[in-house]
């Protein structure tokens, strides 16, 4: 499924890109405008994405390498969900809490014990906050507390 979905998504994206590129001033060959080069890129992108989509639909579906067992898939999905949740939550709850929750949840679901996961979460969250926010002056959000 993935092998067919990716080129198809890219083909749609290339189409959107072309329509946007055509709205930019094209200029002329001697005075190329902001849309000049993007139009060529868009045409190239559409041609190769079409070819890739066609070849994906011609070949046999479901390559073995892509199949995962349920446990592996769950671990990957949890990791991705944790990443997205971290990005969504960090501006609101602050870096230290977000990092603590992030590390603890991932470690727990990768198969560690709760205690190890929580301890690593506390240490890594505090350690990275001191290193980056205190020592290196990165303005990591602290949260409402």
């Amino acid at each position, binding site marked *: 499924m*993935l*092998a067919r979905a*990716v080129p198809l998504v*890219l083909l749609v994206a*290339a189409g959107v*890109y072309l329509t946007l*590129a055509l709205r*930019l*001033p094209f200029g*002329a*060959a*001697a*005075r*190329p*405008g*902001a849309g*000049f*080069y*993007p139009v060529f*890129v*868009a045409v*190239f*992108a559409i041609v*190769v*994405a079409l*070819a*890739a989509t066609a*070849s994906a639909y011609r070949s046999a579906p479901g390559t073995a*390498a*892509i199949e*995962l067992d349920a*446990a*592996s898939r769950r*671990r*990957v999905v*949890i*990791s*991705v969900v944790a*990443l*997205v949740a971290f*990005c969504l939550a*960090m*501006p609101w709850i602050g*870096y230290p809490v977000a*990092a603590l929750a*992030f*590390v603890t949840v*991932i*470690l727990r679901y*990768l*198969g*560690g014990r709760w205690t190890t996961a929580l301890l*690593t979460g506390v240490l*890594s969250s505090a350690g*990275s906050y001191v290193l*980056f926010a205190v020592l*290196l002056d*990165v*303005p*990591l959000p602290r949260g409402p507390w």
Partner: protein
Amino acid sequence: MGPLEGLAYGFSVALLPSNLFACFIGVLVGTIVGVLPGIGPVGAMALLLPSTFAMHPATALIMLAGIYYGAMYGGSTTSILVNVPGEAGSVVTLLDGYQMTRRGRAGAALTIAAVGSFVAGTIGVVGIMLAAGWLADVAIQFGPPEYFAITLGGILLLSRLSGGSILNAFVMVALGLALGTVGMDSISALRRFTFGSVQLAQGVELVPVIMGVYGVAEVLLLAEEGIAKTQIASVKLRELLPTSEEWRRSTMPIARGSVVGFLTGLVPGPAAVLSTFIAYTLEKKVSKTPEKFGTGMIEGVAGPEAANNGATAGAMVPLLSLGIPFSPATAILLGALVVHGLQPGPLMISQRPEVFWGFVASMYIGNLMLLILNLPLVGVFVTVLRLPQHILATLVLLLCLVGAFSLSNSFLDLWVLVIFGVFGYALRKLRVDPSPMVVALVLGPMMEKTLRQALFLTRGSVVDLVARPLSATILILAAAALLGPPLIRLLRGRRFAKPIPQG
């Protein structure tokens, strides 16, 4: 400044305590990420890039490049001892390296790999000194048309060489070029493809993209496995010495690997990986007993391990003398210099000699440090492999998140990181190499700028653009490299019906 004078000056820069320290940190981190499967040199360079913003440009370059060539040393350790490549440049090493371990010659394989890397690294630095200076002298005459031809030719070549299907590589290139146009147009100041976002006007930042496809994606692959235990063969210090027979058999492969590696590094493409395959095939061809390869032949370790180090050196030449990066790793080095307002190119060698020569001299020092780190201390790095991988992987994810945010304190970079992490993971599952996308993202804006400048110069004539002697030569070379191999295969296929045996 002549090469010898320049080198002497370079050592006076590289031996400054701050630069020595940066070099040590670089090669140390490089060795560690090389040893660890999962995170590779490119991800680590991207992670540490923000920390170099406060440094002198020469110091930043010294440290980041140290990670790159240091990883080539570390990668072989894991290949030889665990039968898992520490990073992509060491895949070939495990074919014969791990077989040597099974026969009790792990120590000899490690020593030959480290010495081979050292010799190739040193020869490579001499190569940089000579080639970069010469190329810079030539490049001074280059105008926009030539630079346009180099970037276009480079992207085409890269797609040809990146392995896998050329169609997939072209899709990656198209995506990279399109991403490169997002943001403020450098000539008309018009905002393009930003969907009204103020932050996107800066464009899609390279570093979160690289952290995503080389950092987050790798960790997601590790997450599939869950908690895995690695079996590591142990090595004693006195077993490290190869026999005189093993030394004798390795000498020529190291020499050949060094040259092959350096030359591969000059060409656009994933040089470090590619060079090891070329070197392995070459050793098999010149060997009197090619059928024994794969059973623990020391030549199969010596040649490729020399080659990947030669390639990291060779890859510096186009970056330093033309200012054009042909690989994700050199793209990060370019980023580190551009942050400081330094534009690598033909003028940098004469105008900022402390950066160029300091960097070259630091590579001699770094290779020496690596020889010490990777031989007597190899046991220390092997213990890194005993650390719980899932904890390391999670910490890498957290570091990627903080690192991406710290680039410009922007939440947008966090999202770029996550999106490209997931996308990079999907590409890995589809066995598509993301590096053409990364390189196109860097070269795209250069290509557009030089194309528009060149068209201004030729008043819109495409013929004038490509018919200049230098740009025509470059484009013909690129076309030959692109179309040559399939044509040769076609002609050969007609003459010999029998397929050429592979592998």
